[in-house]
């Protein structure tokens, strides 16, 4: 009994770490939250103020003259790049999972899946390097001008100018590649584990193999797919290095074209800490902590939702099997 208690206490470091992360960020950013108010997420300007003038008192907080901190452009950049990433990764992941589960023979499936899922193991900064060195020049010179000329004539959001290659679409594309294995791997497992009697019943009723898959097997994995998509979404929201290297790191502007430079909350924290440290009042560094806190809360909510969905699915499946 004593052993069990001891083990429970040591194991408690894990919940403690999560609580400590949120608590430290909240306490540290408290003066910033107090100063920024709710407008923090609605304003479009990140301005450190005049760092060389004497700081002024504002409602009891010492601030650099003219400082405003707003992260609307970061929220928009984060949401748009994540949305593009999921929009590309979802069909691609589903397609790859279907092919792996239904077409690739059992003997090969393990190794082909492994090869594709190795994408998940490649470090974010290596994706960034690849994006920076080869993808940006390729997309910027050869692909985006073509899209701008064709699709851009109909949809203004895709129109000219097609930019340099750094920007929203590139960030979305690189992100999609980082999250597609999450969707593909989870869905492939779910498809392989579907009872084969389902398929046999569908085939017996005269469905083609594809119809059996599309109308019978795939709907059965809906909850898993939603859960996996949420997981992928959470990963894309918080991805830092790759986005930092390909997004163009826009400041205080909203994207008007899909090729425009953006920045995300995660990337902004890295790109701005050096200049924030120049602020003698420390309010800029605390405002960055507030961004980290917002990001932490968003990702905790998204991941908790995803896990709850996946847990619910697992439980219902178990109860069916019993």
């Amino acid at each position, binding site marked *: 009994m004593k052993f069990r208690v001891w083990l429970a206490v040591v194991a*408690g*470091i894990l919940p403690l770490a999560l609580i400590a992360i949120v608590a430290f960020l909240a306490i540290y950013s408290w003066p910033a939250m107090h100063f920024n108010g709710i407008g923090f997420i609605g304003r479009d300007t990140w301005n450190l103020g005049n760092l060389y003038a004497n700081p002024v008192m504002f409602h009891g907080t010492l601030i650099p003259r003219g400082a405003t901190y707003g992260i609307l452009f970061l929220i928009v950049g984060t949401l748009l790049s994540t949305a593009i990433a999921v929009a590309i990764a979802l069909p691609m992941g*589903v397609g*790859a999972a279907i092919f792996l589960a239904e077409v690739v023979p059992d003997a090969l499936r393990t190794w082909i899946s492994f090869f594709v899922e190795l994408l998940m193991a490649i470090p974010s900064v290596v994706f960034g390097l690849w994006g920076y060195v*080869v993808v940006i020049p390729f997309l910027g010179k050869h692909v985006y001008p073509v899209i701008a000329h064709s699709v851009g004539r109909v949809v203004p959001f895709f129109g000219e100018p097609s930019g340099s290659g750094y920007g929203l679409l590139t960030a979305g594309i690189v992100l999609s590649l980082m999250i597609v294995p999450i969707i593909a791997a989870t869905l492939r497992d779910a498809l392989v584990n579907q009872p084969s009697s389902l398929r046999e019943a569908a085939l017996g009723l005269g469905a083609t*193999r594809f119809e059996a898959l599309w109308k019978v097997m795939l709907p059965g994995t809906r909850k898993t797919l939603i859960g996996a998509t949420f997981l992928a979404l*959470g990963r894309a929201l*918080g991805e830092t290095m790759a986005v930092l290297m390909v997004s163009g790191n826009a400041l205080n502007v909203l994207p008007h074209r899909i090729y425009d430079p953006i920045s995300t909350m995660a990337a902004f924290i*890295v790109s701005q800490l050096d200049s924030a440290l120049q602020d003698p009042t420390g309010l800029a560094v605390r405002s960055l902590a507030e961004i980290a806190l917002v990001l932490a809360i968003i*990702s905790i909510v998204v991941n908790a939702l995803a896990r709850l969905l996946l847990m619910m699915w697992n439980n219902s499946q178990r109860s069916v099997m019993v």
Partner: protein
Amino acid sequence: MEAIAPAVASTRHIRLSRRLASIVGWTFSGACLVVLGVLMVWILSVVFVRGIGALNISVLTTITRGSGGGLLNAIEGTLLLSGAALLLAIPFGVAAGIYSAEYRFTAWAVVIRFLADVLVGVPSIVIGYFGYVALVQWLGWNFSLAAGAIALAIISLPYICRTTELALRQVSNDLRDAAYSLGANERRVIFGVCLPAALPSILTGVLLALAVSVGETAPLLYTAGWSNFMWDGHLTHSPVGYLTYAIWTFINEPFASANALAYAAALLVTGFVLIINIFARFLLERRRIQR
């Protein structure tokens, strides 16, 4: 044969639209897999071709000097940071894993399991910034090995916890019953019987956690800092270099010598991560075949 023949014949009369849907669907799904495979090969070829071109003995044996030199300081730093992170994370991660597997129906175990999954999803930059606020600023450690290692340890913790738990769950209950019936207490059963049986799987999980921490950048930028020199033996107050930083900074510099260091670092990190993943997968497959 008679029973099957009509069924085969009837498939010939499937409407064209249904056949078309089928062809389009399979082609699309195959194309998705091919595109993923091609992109994977593209990334690996960029890293390996340029990396091998940039790699030579002096890169591995000298320290960074300005925008050139070698990566010895970064290699040492990466190994130190990841190694120290593992040392910190293993006892806590394994304990959390044991608790959530062996007492899996208690509320605390459910909480730990759930929070471990949530912690995996917390962006690494958030953990890095937490390290900056709590360790670098509040505890006043400055950029240091200890701060970087603790940030990495928090990232590895949930991986180790979850793999330990899954490994223990696969240990047969017969084994536990046998040990209990011989008079062993809870501690003997877990440490003497269950853990040794689950050890290979736990090691696989630890290896994968190592691969993750070797590839991390964001949590280290504002905890470990960067240093052009070898580690001076101080746990706090002295920054350390690491390979992923070299990739990120040196690729942005206008000098060919700096870019070459970035490619060499990318090759080292990617190669290391891939080898660990392939080795771990190999262990897993071998165990599956044995069973």
